[in-house]
C-alpha cells in the first residue's frame, strides 16, 4: 500500500492571501506543508522575501505555489522566480466573477510592503485579468510565466460551474500544466453574502465535467487536475480521486486545525484567534503550530488509505479516474431528491471512454523556448561579471515576452535589486511581440525602434523600456499609435518612455513604475495604486477609474480632461507645488533624453505657459495617507518603503525626488 508520507505529497493548502489571514497563520501553513513535502499557496498579494530563507530549525516558510491574481499585487520578478508553481487565479470558488477588495484598515505596513502599495489605502482587485480576454491571452500569460521562471509549472484555477469542462480544455490547450477546479463552498468567510449563497457549483460536478471534457477532447494526458472546496475527510479524497483528481486542496479545515472556530469575523479584522486578522493584539493570540497541520494531514491520508484498501487499490494512481467504482445509493434519495439523475457524473461514453484517465506526462512542467534563451547566452559577461553590454538586434512580432527570462536570471543571481542601471542595453529594431519587457529587472534597458504589441512591461519590476518610431518614419510621432493595450499591468518598478500613443488601459494596476506617453486610449490608470504616469496628449474616457494610489499628470490644452476622467476616487488639481514641478520636469527631460520627443521638447521650451495645461490626478485617500505619513516621523526603514517606491525607484541617475 502507498504510504501516508507519499499520499500527503498530493495535498496542497489552497490560496489564502496574506492579508486575509495573519502572517502567523500563513507562515505556519507554509512550514507545515514544506515539512510534508507538499505545497502551500501564497494567495493573492505577494510574499515577504524574508520567507525565502530557511529558518535555523530547517523549516521553510516559502509558499511553493505563488498565485497570479487579477490584482497582480506583489507579483514581482523575485516572487515569480521563487516558486515551484505559478497559479493563475481565473476565479475563486466562493465568489466567481467577482473581484476582491482589501479594505484600507487591513492594509497594514507589512501587507503594503509585500503588495507594493501604501498602508491604509484600500486595494481593489479588478474582476477580470486585464491581460486575459480570450483563451489566446491566457496562453500568452502562461507563456510569460514559463519564460520568467523556467522551473515552475503553471496552473489555472477555475470555478466549478456549468461549462467548466470547456474552459478546462482551453486551459489544457493553452499549455497549463495543471487545472484546478474549485468548488463553490470554498473560503466563504470574507466573501459577499450574495456570492456565498448563489454562485458556483459543488466540486463534484465541476470535476466530473472537467474529467469528461478533457478525455472527450483527447487532452487528459497532458494536464494534471486538482480539486478543492471544503474537502475534509478521507472519503472526500477518495471520491475526488475516483472522479479524476490527482491533487487535493484544503483551506478552511486547515484554518480550523490552527484555531479557527468559524467566528465568521474574517472581514471585520477581529478574529479572536489571530487567524484572519492583522490586528497585532489578536495575532498574539494565535496558537497554531505546524504540527497541528501535519497531524491532520496524516490522519486524513490514513483514512483515505483505509478506504483505498477496502476498494482494492494499492496506490492513489491506480484509483484516480476509476469512476466506475462510484455508485449511489437510491435509498439515500427520497422526495424531490429521488428525481436526481447521476448518469452524467458516473457514466463515460463515446470517444472519452478510450482515453487515458490521468495525466501521462512525467515531467513536472512542460517547458517553453523563448527569445531570451539566446540573449542569456550573449549576456554572459554582464550576468557573470556585471560588465556593461550593448547589443543591437532585430526583433519581430513572433518574439514574445522578450526580457523576462533574462530578468529572472538576473534576479536569481543578484536579488530584486538586480544589476546597476544600464548594465545591459538591448537595442532592437522592428516590431516587438506581446509582453515586451514583462517581469523586467533593474539593470536592463530595452530600446525599440519600431513599435510594440500589447502587455508591454507586464509586472515589470525595474529596468527601462523605450519605444520610438523608426528613424525614417515620416509621420508625426505624437499622432501615431506605437504601443498596444494594457501596458505596465501590475508593474512594481522601472520606467517606460513611449514616443507616441498607446492603446487602452495604460498603466492598469500599476503600483510602482513611472511612464511618459504621448496619448492613451480608454481606462488609463485604472486601479492604479502607485507609481507615476505622465500623458502628454489625448486620453480616452474613464481615466483613473478605481485609482487608489499613485499620481498622474495629464497635458490637457483642450480643457476637457475632466469629462473623460472618472472622478469617483480622484481629485483633479493644478500642478503647483515644487515637488510636483520638479517631478514633472525631470520626467519630461528624461523622456526627451531617451526618445528625443519633439512634443516634450516643445512643452519644455514654453514651460511657464504650458504648465497651466497640466492637470494632476490625485487619489483622494492616497493624498490623506501621504499627508499623514509625512507628519509621522519614519520609524524604521521598512515602514517608509511603499511611498518611497513611488518616488525613489531604483535607477536614480539624476532623478532625485522622484
Amino acid at each position, binding site marked *: 500500500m502507498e504510504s501516508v508520507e507519499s499520499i500527503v505529497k498530493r495535498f496542497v493548502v489552497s490560496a489564502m492571501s496574506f492579508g486575509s489571514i495573519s502572517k502567523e497563520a500563513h507562515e505556519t501553513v507554509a512550514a507545515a506543508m514544506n515539512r510534508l513535502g507538499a505545497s502551500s499557496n501564497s494567495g493573492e498579494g505577494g510574499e515577504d522575501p524574508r520567507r525565502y530563507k530557511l529558518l535555523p530549525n530547517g523549516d521553510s516558510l516559502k509558499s511553493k505555489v505563488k498565485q497570479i491574481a487579477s490584482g497582480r499585487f506583489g507579483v514581482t520578478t523575485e516572487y515569480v522566480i521563487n516558486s515551484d508553481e505559478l497559479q493563475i487565479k481565473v476565479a475563486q470558488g466562493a465568489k466567481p466573477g467577482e473581484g476582491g477588495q482589501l479594505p484600507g484598515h487591513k492594509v497594514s505596513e507589512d501587507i503594503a510592503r509585500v503588495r507594493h502599495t501604501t498602508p491604509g489605502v484600500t486595494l481593489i482587485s479588478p474582476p477580470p485579468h486585464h491581460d486575459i480576454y480570450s483563451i489566446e491571452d491566457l496562453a500568452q500569460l502562461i507563456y510569460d510565466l514559463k519564460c520568467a521562471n523556467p522551473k515552475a509549472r503553471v496552473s489555472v484555477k477555475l470555478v466549478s460551474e456549468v461549462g467548466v469542462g470547456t474552459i478546462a480544455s482551453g486551459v489544457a490547450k493553452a499549455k497549463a500544466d495543471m487545472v484546478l477546479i474549485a468548488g463553490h463552498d470554498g473560503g466563504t468567510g470574507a466573501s459577499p453574502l450574495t456570492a456565498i449563497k448563489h454562485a458556483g457549483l459543488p466540486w463534484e460536478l465541476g470535476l466530473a465535467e472537467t474529467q469528461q471534457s478533457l478525455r472527450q477532447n483527447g487532452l487528459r494526458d497532458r494536464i494534471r487536475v486538482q480539486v478543492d472546496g471544503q474537502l475534509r475527510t478521507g472519503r472526500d479524497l477518495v471520491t475526488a480521486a475516483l472522479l479524476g483528481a490527482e491533487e487535493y486542496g484544503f483551506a478552511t479545515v486547515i484554518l480550523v486545525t490552527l484555531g479557527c*472556530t*468559524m*467566528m*465568521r*469575523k474574517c472581514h*471585520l479584522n*477581529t478574529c*479572536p*484567534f489571530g487567524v484572519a486578522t492583522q*490586528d497585532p*493584539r*489578536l495575532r498574539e*493570540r494565535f*496558537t497554531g503550530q505546524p504540527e497541528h497541520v501535519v497531524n491532520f494531514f496524516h490522519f486524513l491520508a490514513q483514512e483515505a488509505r483505509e478506504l483505498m484498501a477496502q476498494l482494492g487499490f494499492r496506490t492513489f494512481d491506480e484509483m484516480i479516474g476509476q469512476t466506475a467504482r462510484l455508485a449511489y445509493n437510491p435509498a439515500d434519495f427520497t422526495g424531490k431528491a429521488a428525481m436526481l439523475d447521476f448518469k452524467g457524473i458516473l457514466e463515460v461514453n463515446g470517444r472519452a471512454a478510450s482515453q487515458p484517465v490521468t495525466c501521462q506526462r512525467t515531467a513536472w512542467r512542460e517547458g517553453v523556448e523563448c527569445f531570451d534563451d539566446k540573449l542569456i547566452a550573449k549576456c554572459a559577461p554582464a550576468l557573470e561579471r556585471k560588465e556593461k553590454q550593448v547589443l543591437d538586434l532585430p526583433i519581430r512580432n513572433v518574439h514574445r515576452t522578450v526580457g523576462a527570462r533574462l530578468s529572472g536570471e538576473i534576479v536569481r543571481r543578484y536579488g530584486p535589486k538586480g544589476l546597476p542601471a544600464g548594465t545591459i542595453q538591448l537595442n532592437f529594431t522592428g516590431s516587438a511581440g506581446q509582453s515586451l519587457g514583462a517581469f523586467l529587472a533593474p539593470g536592463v534597458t530595452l530600446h525599440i525602434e519600431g513599435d510594440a504589441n500589447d502587455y508591454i512591461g507586464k509586472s515589470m519590476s525595474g529596468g527601462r523600456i523605450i519605444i520610438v518610431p523608426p528613424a525614417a518614419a515620416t509621420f508625426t510621432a505624437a499622432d501615431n499609435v506605437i504601443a498596444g493595450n494594457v501596458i505596465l499591468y501590475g508593474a512594481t518598478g522601472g520606467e517606460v518612455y513611449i514616443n507616441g500613443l498607446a492603446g487602452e488601459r495604460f498603466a492598469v494596476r500599476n503600483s510602482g513604475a513611472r511612464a511618459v506617453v504621448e496619448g492613451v486610449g480608454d481606462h488609463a490608470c485604472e486601479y492604479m495604486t502607485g507609481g507615476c504616469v505622465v500623458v502628454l496628449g489625448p486620453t480616452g474616457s474613464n481615466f483613473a477609474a478605481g485609482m487608489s494610489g499613485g499620481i498622474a499628470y495629464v497635458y490637457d490644452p483642450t480643457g476637457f480632461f475632466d469629462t473623460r476622467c472618472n472622478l469617483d476616487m480622484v481629485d483633479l488639481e493644478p500642478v503647483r507645488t515644487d515637488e510636483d514641478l520638479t517631478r514633472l520636469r525631470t520626467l519630461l527631460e528624461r523622456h526627451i533624453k531617451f526618445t528625443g520627443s519633439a512634443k516634450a521638447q516643445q512643452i519644455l521650451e514654453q514651460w511657464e505657459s504650458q504648465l497651466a495645461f497640466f492637470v494632476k490626478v490625485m487619489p483622494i485617500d492616497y493624498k490623506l495617507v501621504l499627508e499623514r505619513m509625512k507628519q509621522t516621523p519614519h520609524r524604521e526603514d521598512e515602514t517608509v518603503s511603499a511611498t518611497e517606491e513611488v518616488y525613489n525607484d531604483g535607477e536614480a541617475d539624476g532623478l532625485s525626488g522622484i
Partner: protein
Amino acid sequence: MAKPTGFLEFKRQPPSKRPVNERVKDWREIEQAWPEVKLEEQAARCMDCGVPFCHMSGCPLKNVIPEWNDLVYRKQWRAALELLHSTNNFPEVTGRVCPAPCEAACTLGANDDPVTIRQIELHLVERGWREGWIQPQPAAMSSGRKVAVVGSGPAGLAAAQQLARAGHAVVVFEAHDRAGGVLRYGIPDFKLEKWILDRRLNQMKAEGVSFETGIKVGEDISVNYLLRHFDAILLAGGARVPRDIQAKGRGELKGIHFAMDFLIQQNHRVAGDTVPTAAEISAKGKNVVVIGGGDTGADCLGTALRQGALDVLQVEILPKPPAQRDASTPWPLWPYMLRSSSSHDEGGERRWNILTQEFIGKDGRVVALRGCEVEWKKAENGRMSPVEKPGTEFEVPADLVLLAMGFTKEGNAKMLNGCGLATTPASDPVLDRNFMGSVPGVFVAGDLNRGASLVVRAMMEGREAAAGVTRWLATKA
C-alpha cells in the same frame, strides 16, 4: 452584533460580593448589582460568534445568548428580556444559582475571560421585574386537558408554566409545605432569597397553575388516583435519596446528619418557621466536618459558619483538581478544575484525598472523626481507585458531621417503580422521545430522570417534557 471590538476594549468584570465579615452575619444575598453602564460594557464583549458555543454546547436551555447580549448593548432591554424568556422560564433563578456552563463554553474563554453571561441574564430579568414588564401570560384558549405535575422543583415549575401557557389545567402536587423543591428547601437563602420564588409563583398562579402543597404522591394520594383524574402526569420529584457513608460508628452515634436535613431546617428558620428543639441540628459552637467536596458541601459550610460554628472542615475523597482548566477538558468542554463557592471565601478548611475511616463517639454522640489520606491508583479493572496511604492516619474533633455525598439513583428507581414505571439496570426510567415512561400518560423530568444534576438542566427537561406532554395529548382524541 454587539460592538465588534468590545472584547478588546473591556475586561471581564465579575460582580462584586458583599464583604465577608458583613455577609456571614445574615442570610441575605451575597452578590451585588452592577450599574447599568457596566452591564452594557460587559454585553459589548460578546463577539457574536459564527458558531456560538455558549448557546449550542453551553447552556442546556439553549438560551440565545449572543442575540440578547446584542440587544442589551443597544439598550433594547425589553426585546432582550422577551428573547431571554423565550427559552428560560426563571432567569432570576439561573441568574443566581447556575454554574453557567455557557461561560465555560464561551468562545472568548478559549484565550481570554468569558463574557459574564449569567450576570447579564440576572440584571436583565431583574430590570424586567422592576419595570413591570413581567406580567402573567395566561393561555388564550383552554385545551380542556388536565395535567398533574408531581414535585415543584425547577423541573416541575418550568413544566407547569409551559403546560399552563399551552392551555392545560395544571395542578402541582408538592410534599413540602411550600413549592420550590431544592430552590426552596436546600439552596441556602444567601444564594437564593425565597421571596424571589414567591414573586414567580404568583405569576404562575395568575396564569392558572394551582399548587397543592403538603401532599405526598404515593402516600397521601396514589398515582392511580391521579391517572383517573388527569389526562397526563409529569413526575418531577427530584433526586431525594442521599448517599450514606459506610464507616464505623455511623449507625450508633448521634450528631451525624444528611446535608439536606441540615440545610432544609435552616431554610425553614429563615422563613420564620419554628423548628422543634428535639429535631434541631445546629452548628453553633461546634467543630463541624462536612464530608463531600461538592456544591452541597459548600452550602453546608456557608450555613454552618452563619450559625456560628467553631470551625468547619470539608473533606473530599477525590484528588484536588488543578487551579486552571485541565488539559483533559479543553475549551469548550466543561472544565475539570478546582471550583470554589462564595462560602469558601468565608472560612473553613478544605482537604482532598481524604477517606473517612471511623466516627469516634462519647456518650452516644460523635466527638471526632478518624481518617487517612488516599492515593488514586489504577486498579486491575482499569478504574482509578483509592488506596490508603500508610502513616497518614489522623483524628479531628467533630461534634457535627454533615454528609454531602450526593444522591443515589437507586433511590430514584424506587420512586419510579413505585409509580409503576419500568427502569433500566442503571436505574434510569425508560422514556420515549416525549419523556413518557412505560405507563401511557406518565412522564418524567428533572433529577428524577437523570439523577442529581443542575437547576438549568432540570428546567430544560421540564420544558421539553411539557412539550412532550402537549404533543402526546394532541394525539389523543
